């Protein structure tokens, strides 16, 4: 077990708390950098999706895990990012401009969706965001003159300053760079006053407000940042699949995105990436397993059933998600043989003030 002996304030602030973290994250980044030359085309494609969904997961994690606002409408922001990118590219706008536009436009709509969040909580907010998802999906389907409706939109490979990113490796490095930048931006935000205000809103709105946190401002801000990241993810997604149509951005997609957050572990940035990886890898595992299962079990409904069971299993047995599980395993090794079973048990908060609700 490692004890960090703090002798100055900077040690509380810096991103890497000790040299061990620098080593392991450095190793991870090195492995990711050389990955294109080691893995085949199929694995590469899965890595694309994991990185894209990581960015989306980070956005949703900020909103759900750190600000405590639920959203069942994030597929709408994915769609908005994807369509903004597709339509701007079709009109000849270069990628370095269209990507920020996709993020900005998503952020604007995120801000608008944040406004009802000022009055709604919990399940009611979930319903409102769900309605937003349905509205956006419907608008994209019906507004055929702009979006092409159900005919969808085709995208060409990304070109940055005359250099084409048509190859898998080039697109991979773009996704990787954007993912790392997103993670850094989130980490920076969470260790500064804005991030603390988000967490304060999550834990107790009433005392956040009494400490001078402007609830309206920070809730809408959280929605906007979350939507911007999802919009960036959407733009990359559009380029990855090269063809987008409204049925890719349904409520089911939104629920899958929330699954990333819950499986990964609510309230951790690691969780967003782990959840995304899990969401992409699980269907592959299921399709491998299908080869060994009798025909009547390996039907098309198998994936939905497995997803449901996994989700319920996590909520019941591991509410902290994959990251929580990893923390336990790590602590077990660090403290061996002194790990106790109840170490991570969550305490019921008692004496919560009821009279202000």
């Amino acid at each position, binding site marked *: 077990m490692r004890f960090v002996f703090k002798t100055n304030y900077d040690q509380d*602030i810096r991103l890497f708390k000790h040299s061990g973290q620098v080593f392991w994250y450095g190793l991870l980044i090195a492995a990711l950098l050389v990955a294109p030359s080691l893995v085949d085309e199929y694995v590469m494609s899965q890595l694309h999706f994991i990185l894209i969904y990581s960015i989306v997961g980070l956005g949703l994690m900020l909103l759900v895990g750190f600000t405590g606002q639920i959203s069942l409408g994030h597929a709408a922001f994915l769609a908005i990012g994807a369509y903004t990118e597709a339509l701007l590219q079709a009109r000849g706008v270069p990628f370095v401009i269209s990507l920020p536009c996709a993020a900005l436009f998503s952020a604007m709509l995120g801000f608008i969706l944040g406004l009802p969040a000022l009055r709604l909580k919990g399940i009611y907010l979930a319903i409102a965001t769900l309605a937003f998802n349905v509205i956006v999906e419907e608008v994209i389907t019906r507004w055929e003159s702009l979006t092409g409706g159900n005919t969808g939109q085709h995208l060409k490979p990304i070109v940055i300053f005359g250099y084409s990113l048509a190859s898998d490796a080039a697109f991979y490095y773009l996704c990787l760079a954007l993912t790392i930048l997103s993670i850094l931006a989130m980490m920076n935000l969470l260790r500064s*006053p*804005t991030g603390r205000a988000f967490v304060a809103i999550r834990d107790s709105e009433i005392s956040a*407000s009494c400490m001078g946190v402007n609830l309206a401002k920070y809730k809408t801000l959280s929605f906007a940042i979350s939507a911007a990241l999802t919009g960036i993810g959407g733009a990359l997604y559009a380029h990855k699949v090269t063809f987008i149509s409204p049925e890719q951005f349904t409520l089911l997609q939104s629920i899958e995105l929330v699954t990333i957050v819950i499986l990964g572990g609510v309230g951790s940035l690691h969780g967003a990436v782990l959840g995304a990886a899990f969401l992409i890898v699980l269907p592959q595992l299921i399709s491998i397993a299908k080869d060994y299962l009798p025909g009547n079990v390996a039907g098309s409904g198998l994936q939905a059933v497995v997803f449901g069971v996994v989700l319920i299993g996590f909520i019941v047995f591991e509410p902290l998600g994959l990251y929580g599980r990893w923390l336990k395993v790590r602590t077990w090794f660090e403290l061996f043989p002194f790990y106790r079973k109840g170490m991570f048990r969550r305490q019921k908060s008692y004496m919560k003030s009821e009279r202000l609700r």
Partner: protein
Amino acid sequence: MSFFRVEKLGIRFGGVVAVDDVSFEVKRGEVYTIIGPNGAGKTTIFNLIGLIYPASSGRIVFEDQDLTGLAQHRVAELGIARTFQNIELFEHATVLQNLLIGRHRHRSTSLWEEMLFTGSVRRAEIAQREAVEKVIDLLDLAHYRDSRVAGLPYGVRKVIELGRALASEPRLLLLDEPSSGLNPEETDEMAFWIEDIKKGLGVTVLMVEHDMNLVSRVSDRVLALSEGRVIAEGTPAEVQSHPAVIEAYLGGAAVSPPLSPPLSASS
């Protein structure tokens, strides 16, 4: 110019008049305590000052600024901090993070600077931590600095909440029953801290409290409420022996010699 005053403050919930025509004035640098039996409207007055409830009538004036009609978060920005009777901490954050939230009104960095974590953000963060560390020293919280609030005992949480309010460097501190749920030693410590806050930091304290030992030890003046109305105001001794106060606590028939002094025990 008065430091803080409440003028003819009132609020009704449906047919219930919770606070009725209450006026008082707090002088700079004093400890002013509101007492009264359960349901007298003490915490309601705090919630009115914090703009958690909109006042039905009256004004709340802090350094010549009328609070009524402002947005809720503006109260803290003006320099009024509060604690809650039943503790409202950020459960899933560490003690240090809780205290840093108290510094929210002293933030100076913009969103873009924070995302890039520029040098100015780093310097601001270090300055915030230095300020918080002073509060940690004062309240003796160093031992708990990096622990999560969710696992800490009640008495410690109570102190953390006081610390969070102090971290905002308030000019007026509202304490809602600082001794509730504390054992006698912890209450004793709380009394020392309130005196420290008043004398050492020069912060004016407005407090709601039941424990009459604590009240008479730290308060400069006391206001007694009953059923939303002011029934007495003065020094702790004056208010304790006021006939209307005795009647409010013990009922009209009980005003007879054997029962005095009636308020020496905590209720």
